[in-house]
């Protein structure tokens, strides 16, 4: 790795970090796991003048359950999520997602927050966070704020946070009982970016009616997106094969994927969004024990 030269800071608190970000603005980049930042610096696609490394800040690597929510700190690695019994028990779709990210080395170092902030439409976490309706906690010198996941991805590699702000935590509502989720990643090979990916989270009432539906799509648009009409096609239904097909069709219709010679044409990717949405719904419904 031979990047251009940069100045390196390793602050020991969030406050100190915010001061540095305030001072250096968009010339500074925050380093957490480095699994996106370092490759683009290596290729000299980005050459930030200042690197602000969060890794010396204590207490940012927590996974905590708090009043129906799971709180995930900014330095929680994918590996921690894979290994967390708490997450596996309460939000299994997150375990499934984390296991499919990159390769072992990426999972050991990369962070959930870093992945979200990077805003790569091929990122896996974005879809799962959309399906779970997570919120993002942001700190800044003028105080903290909370951003809904639907407002977080503004464009490819462009998040809703300012250059002097720092994401400190992600808050994930824990699905209610009789829930089922699935993350399906259609990839050319293990560790590749998704050709397309679909996260689907469902909940059911006692009679098997779908009371919650969250569907997020990976690599299907300039950002991770919610398939709202697909969710609507499931809500209030006992999900039949026809319902999942109709929802899958809706998901495919809002998809505007980019053609690429390696992972497929836009036409193919749209067809795969439909196929894997249908499959993800069917698996999620089966896991929620309501599949007719």
């Amino acid at each position, binding site marked *: 790795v031979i990047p*251009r030269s940069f100045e390196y800071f390793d602050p020991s608190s969030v406050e100190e970090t915010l001061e540095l970000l305030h001072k250096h603005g968009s010339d500074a980049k925050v380093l957490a796991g480095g699994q996106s930042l370092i490759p683009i610096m290596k290729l000299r696609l980005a050459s930030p003048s200042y690197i602000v490394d969060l890794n010396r800040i204590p207490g940012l690597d927590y996974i905590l359950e708090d009043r129906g929510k799971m709180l995930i700190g900014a330095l929680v690695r994918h590996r921690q999520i894979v290994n967390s019994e708490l997450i596996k028990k309460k939000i299994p779709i997150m375990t499934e997602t984390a296991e499919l990210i990159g390769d072992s080395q990426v999972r050991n170092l990369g962070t959930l927050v870093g992945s979200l902030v990077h805003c790569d439409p091929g990122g896996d976490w974005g879809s799962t966070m959309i399906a779970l309706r997570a919120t993002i906690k942001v700190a800044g010198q003028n105080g903290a704020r909370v951003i809904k996941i639907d407002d977080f991805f503004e464009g490819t590699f462009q998040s809703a946070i300012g250059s002097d702000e720092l994401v400190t935590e992600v808050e994930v509502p824990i699905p209610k009982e009789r829930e089922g989720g699935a993350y399906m990643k259609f990839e050319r090979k293990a560790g590749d970016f998704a050709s397309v990916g679909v996260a689907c989270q469902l909940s059911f009432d006692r009679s098997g009616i779908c009371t919650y539906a969250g569907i997020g799509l990976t690599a299907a648009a300039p950002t991770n997106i919610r398939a709202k009409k697909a969710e609507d096609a499931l809500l209030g239904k006992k999900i039949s094969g026809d319902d999942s097909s109709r929802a899958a069709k809706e998901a495919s219709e809002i998809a505007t994927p980019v053609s690429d*010679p*390696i992972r497929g044409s836009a036409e*193919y990717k749209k*067809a795969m969004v439909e*196929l894997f949405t249908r499959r993800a719904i069917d698996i999620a419904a089966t896991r929620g024990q309501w599949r007719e």
Partner: protein
Amino acid sequence: MAPYLGQSINKLDDPVLVRGEGTFVDDIKFPNMLYVGFVRSPYAHAEIINVDYREALARTGVLAAFNGQEVKKMLKPYPVFHGLVRYTECYPLAVERVNFVGEPVVAVLADDPYTLADALDDVQIDYKPLPVVSDPEKALQEDSPLLYPDWGNNIMFKFRVKGGDIDLAFEKADLKFKDTIEIHRYTGAPMEPRAYAANYEHGAKTLTYWASTQQAHVTRSMLADALDFPEKNIRVIQPNVGGGFGLKTPIYPEEALICLTSMKLRRPVKWTETRREHMVATGHAREQKHYIEVAARKDGVVLGIRDKMIVDLGVFYPSHGQMQMFVTAKYIVGPYAIRNVDIDAYGVATNKTYYYAYRGFGKEAANFVYEGIMDRVARELGLDRAEVRFRNFIPPDAFPYKTGTGCTYDSGNYPAVLKKALDAADYPNFAKMKSEARKQGRYLGLGISYVLEPSASAIPNSYTQGYDATTIRVDPAGNVTVLTGVSSAGSGNETGIAQAVADEIGVNIDDVTVTQGDTAICPYGLGNYSSRSSVIGLSSAVFAARKIRAKIVKAAAHMLEARAEDLEIDRGRVFVRGSPAKSITIRDVARKIYRDPYTIPNLDMGLDETYYFLEPNIQHSPDEEGNINTYPNYPNGANIALIEVDPKSGDFKILKYIVVHDCGTVINPSLVEGQIMGGVIQGLGGAVYEELLYDENGQLLTSSFMDYLIPSIVETPPMTILHHVTKCPFTPLGQKGCGEGGAEGVSSALISALEDGLHDYNVRIRKSPLKPEFIWGKISEGSHNGGRTDT
């Protein structure tokens, strides 16, 4: 004791490499070393208008910079590799024009790699873009822009291969068909990319050059030509090499420049290429198109093949890479007794990276063609795919067998090998398994591919020859040093050589040291390519060891007061056959020879022997039909792939991959299995994942591992590897090669399996790579042509 031959002895260099204690070129450092880097062309075809590196030179820590005009004045052009293809002068840096994206234009030297990388960004080059030639078929049209105007057209290599009477074959045929076959461009990606370091010592006028190469001596000879510097003053050292696959055969454009700058600046100079540079500037392979016509009888016997092949060779560069298409043509009949062949071959120059040797060396393309023919004949005639192959095989009693194209196959038993593979796959029961899976909505497919793997090539008037050398020395302590002209790029042939030498002399393998890849120590040899190290190199080691043994026995006979022919040597002890109790050691004998030679009557002094082995089954003078034989050994094997396809996405999974391989005598089973396993994974990479894709402007779209996908252990299928032994009559132990076969049959085995699995959808595949979208498209295409339509 039991011989070492045939035992799965661990690779002798494993402990060093596993602990990370190996020495690769990038590990070599000198205190005053300079780092060289290259500014490469962003254009596929352009005139160089102006080069300005003043800003780079002004940077602290930058020592020098050179452009192509400057370098041309200080070097000879790279020499003709062999006379069979057209030639044009090539230098390390582009002189007036750039011809491909990634061509080196300016070299910069700096004290450290960081300064260097910044300085490379400072260099300003003005280009005037020229029309780009990116499609080899359009390149053949009369109005095409030309890469080399003095050639008059874009044809780099044109030849015809003929055998038998092709017109008569078509007259007699019951079945005739045409097909167009397209193999995509891809290449190897060794873990260690290319790396070189040069150190010129001005006082002694010697140049030492460390190279991640497969051929130390050949590198030395070619450097001497390009530098116009005495070969005797050059020493080339090949340290540990992290994979070669043919791509590390000499000589690349950058190499002479690295040496030249060390000589000019009187400082050591090093270059390690980046992965991105590897993709654009280390050679490419494959990209062949075949327009074939086939004649067959109604019993499935193929009578003749006509083929017009067009190969995208990229830009011209003097290497043996272009010969790959010659090999494809010569072996288009594979293991089959197809006597009538007529091939018209065009190797075309385009604005892409030059063609270079890559594992398979054209044999994988021949396999793609001949196995496609076998499957299509079976389909057209409603015959079993295995049965069609049995009917076409060269029979086991026909060896040595001379093909219609003038190649002499040494030995083989193809029916026995295929039968063993079919048994391992439980072939007779597969149809039942398949229909039961179908009831559960699963689509299984079985594919067959038979691989012919000509090995140890020898091309007339080139550094690709059928000889190699071994020097064996026994020191006064009785230890054995083996110096060979062959080398290992990590494949482990030194272990096989140690096994053979230990057996031949009669010593413990721990007392044998094999040294390779140093021109100051080893006899002149041709290194490692074409699976030759264990064929040619090991054979020379066997003969050298026999000479050493004879000398030891002669001296020991005197010491033991016995007749030489009654002596036996086992694990370092010499004794009269049947009386092992009364023995002396090889150390005793060696000490006697070195310290007390006057007491041994008629002593042939010294325990130091060199043997050059020249493989006899090569024919370089053309026969009556003008054909030559460039390969002496013909290992072969059967591949069977068992897959499950998802017809809705076009994706598929390999459930099992079976290889039965015949490389003659197996020196070390685990080394052979390692070669096959690695080869299959590499072949799988080429069949499905790896693709060098260019756009119409000649830009390479897949220049990093983000887009050039390499299979990992996750994609690696469970494999069953079995051996079958048909000895080679031309080598002392009966061994053939085994380095390439694994990589050669995967595409055709998978196509065969996909067509079988998707039989209901009437899927026909004549093209690679086997990407999910491509298969998905074929399913819908098949549905329109009478196949199922329910996807």
